[in-house]
């Protein structure tokens, strides 16, 4: 085990753990935000640069500070490493810069975006963004496209985290979408208008941190904060069948995977509880599910947290 200090809090972790995962072990304010890293999808991370932290001391053996800020999701800890996240002015400034870059071409259409209320970029913008944009140029725009009959791709909102590409690589039989073009013109797209159709493609919606990939069976049906999330289960031959159903009265509006406090799909019985498309899209009747009870969710998001009106002292509340 190695000892690492993050924002003055010491924690012991396995050698080879990333700084981000060590911080997640501590929890609370010590955890850097992560837009592209997804612990359940090996290989993700390093791209969005929102998790940059300052390494004030590299290790006990070599206590020199690291000259650059490092991506905490892809930098392994060393014994005696001292990391500053929330406590570093430099981190705060540069993270603000990254958020500004992410928002430069991102439309501010939260009022009509289905992701609003559970959008990581919205949270990040709330915490680190500035009230006014300095970006005066014309924004890059794309037309929304349907990739298959269940998923809508709104490329304008995409931050190119590559998570959905990893989902396709790791959960589905073959990947028919990916990143096309370069630089500012890079976009997620399918191979010559091919539809993304396989049993696990719906998980792309769950891992998308923004409103770029949305559920076509749910689009514009309701704002997420009007719905009650309930833990539910059904027997399914393709996936674990353990999901969250989002209800209004006795109607199920949408089905998602169960997510933990970092917004990632939970591990249940040692396996990540990815959902198959059958459970996600085809079972929208309360009779299809055994509903266990209200879901304890982390109300991390801007709107559900009620940051505008109430205190943020108790971020975890029981809804319903």
């Amino acid at each position, binding site marked *: 085990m190695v000892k690492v200090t993050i924002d003055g809090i010491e924690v012991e972790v396995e050698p080879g753990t990333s700084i981000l995962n060590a911080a997640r072990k501590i929890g609370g304010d010590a955890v850097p935000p992560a837009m592209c890293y997804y612990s359940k999808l090996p290989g993700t*991370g*390093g*791209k*969005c*640069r*929102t998790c*940059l932290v300052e390494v004030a001391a590299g290790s006990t053996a070599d206590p020199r500070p690291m*000259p*650059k*800020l490092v*991506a905490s999701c*892809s930098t*392994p800890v060393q014994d005696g490493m001292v990391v500053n996240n929330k406590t570093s002015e430099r981190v705060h400034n*540069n993270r603000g*810069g*990254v958020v*500004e*870059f*992410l928002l*430069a*071409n991102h439309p501010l259409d939260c009022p009509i975006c289905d992701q609003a209320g559970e959008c990581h970029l919205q949270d990040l913008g709330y915490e680190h963004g500035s009230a006014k944009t*300095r*970006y005066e*140029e*014309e924004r*890059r725009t794309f037309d929304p496209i349907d990739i298959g009959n269940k998923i809508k791709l709104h490329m304008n909102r995409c*931050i*190119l985290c*590559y998570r959905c590409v990893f989902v396709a690589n790791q959960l589905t039989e073959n990947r028919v979408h*990916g*990143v096309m*073009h*370069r*630089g*500012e*013109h*890079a976009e997620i797209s399918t191979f010559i208008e091919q539809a993304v159709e396989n049993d696990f493609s719906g998980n792309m919606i769950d891992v998308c941190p923004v409103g770029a990939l949305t559920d076509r069976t749910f689009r514009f049906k309701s704002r997420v904060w009007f719905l009650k999330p309930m833990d539910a289960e059904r027997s399914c031959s393709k996936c674990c069948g353990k999901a969250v159903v989002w209800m209004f009265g006795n109607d199920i509006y949408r089905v998602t995977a169960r997510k933990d406090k970092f917004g990632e799909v939970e591990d249940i019985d040692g396996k990540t509880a990815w959902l198959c498309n059958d459970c996600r899209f085809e079972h929208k009747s309360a009779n299809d599910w055994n509903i266990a009870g209200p879901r304890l969710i982390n109300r991390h998001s801007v709107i559900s947290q009620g940051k505008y009106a109430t205190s943020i002292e108790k971020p975890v509340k029981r809804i319903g």
Partner: protein
Amino acid sequence: MKNRRLLLEHVEVPGIEGIEVYVKNGGYAALQKAVKKMSPEEVVEEVKKSGLRGRGGAGFPTGMKWSFLAKPEGVPRYLVCNADESEPGTFKDRYLMEKLPHLLIEGMILSSFALGANQSYIYIRGEFMYVLNILEKAIAEAYAKGYLGKNILGSGYDLDLVVTPGGGAYICGEETALLESLEGKRGNPRIKPPFPAVKGLWGCPTVVNNVESIAAVVPIVRDGGDAYAAIGIGRSTGTKLISACGNLARPGVYEIDLGISVEEFIYGDDYCRGIANGKQLKACVPGGSSVPILPHFLVTKTATGEDRLMTYESLAEGGFASGSMLGSGGFIIFDEDQCIVRNTWNFARFYAHESCGQCSPCREGTGWMEKVLSRIEHGQGHMHDIDLLADINKKIEGNTICPLGDAAAWPVAAAIHHFREEFEWHIKHPSEAQTRNYGLIQQPVVA
């Protein structure tokens, strides 16, 4: 000749691209010496002694890079030659490969021998298809002579050498993006660590070296590392190819001894013979488009009034405030008629186009800078844009996955630092800026 010493010594011999003429002029003598009389470790030792530094731009000592190569049992090691030369202003590798393909091939064999690699690659820029044909012809000749293939010159050492063209992306000159591309994937830089010396091509230990670095191994092995180190000053040893372009009387590729003065290089009869058409020097980018630009009064002298020399150290003297870098040796000269704003926009446009789009600061930042600079250049700028650009630079620099972000930020930052008044003039006089150039900036009195 003074400007053709080690690498380019025989460049003008007719037919030197063929193996017969190359061998007649002393070619493959170093290879004979290495495989027959030296061990791989001794070759590495000579390269270390020579003080050779990576000629691709970063200037990292080649011998040290080689010694970092992990050597686990039963795992192949690879040498990859980075011939993806695409930095604006740099064209030395193309010249070398075009004229002296066998020098690179001999260097590849020597370096592979030193590193214990049995399969090596030359990753060449997609636009250099005609060079690829030259190299493939030369490689076929080397196979026929027994310099490549099984049991090279009876030494028991085997090596296969393959040339692979890229798709024509600047980013594939970044070593990990190059490896991704070589593996047949999208050329996105990898997240480091692990570094290629531990986990490179196909997950095996790999060394990636520039064309010129590999070619320089030939004279180092032939004459010994000490003889090579005797040329140059301090930690800048040996000779360096400089591709001089811009408003020079005699642009071209020169092989200089590191340590000659910048003044001699620009004005000397053996080199560029001054600024073209009797104009005055305005600015200089000494190491390819990604290094900071220098205003005329900092080109031949440092801020402290000392002579500036063509060395890694002297060109960097003064840091980013008053210095630059030797970089890849793409030496670009601007005369009094050139517009710094337009040039900075041109560079920014290049980096915006070549950013891979993987990490957010570079993807969004380079595009943003390009748009702001384009506005300024086309008479739509505001005064606050200058500070905005400086701030975008700071947010990109050091926060990206690979050095392309830094390379995009530095030229803009330096241009604003040194030529701020020209940017201001552009913004204040938008219509005038469309029809004439600002001219020379005022030379401050050097104490």
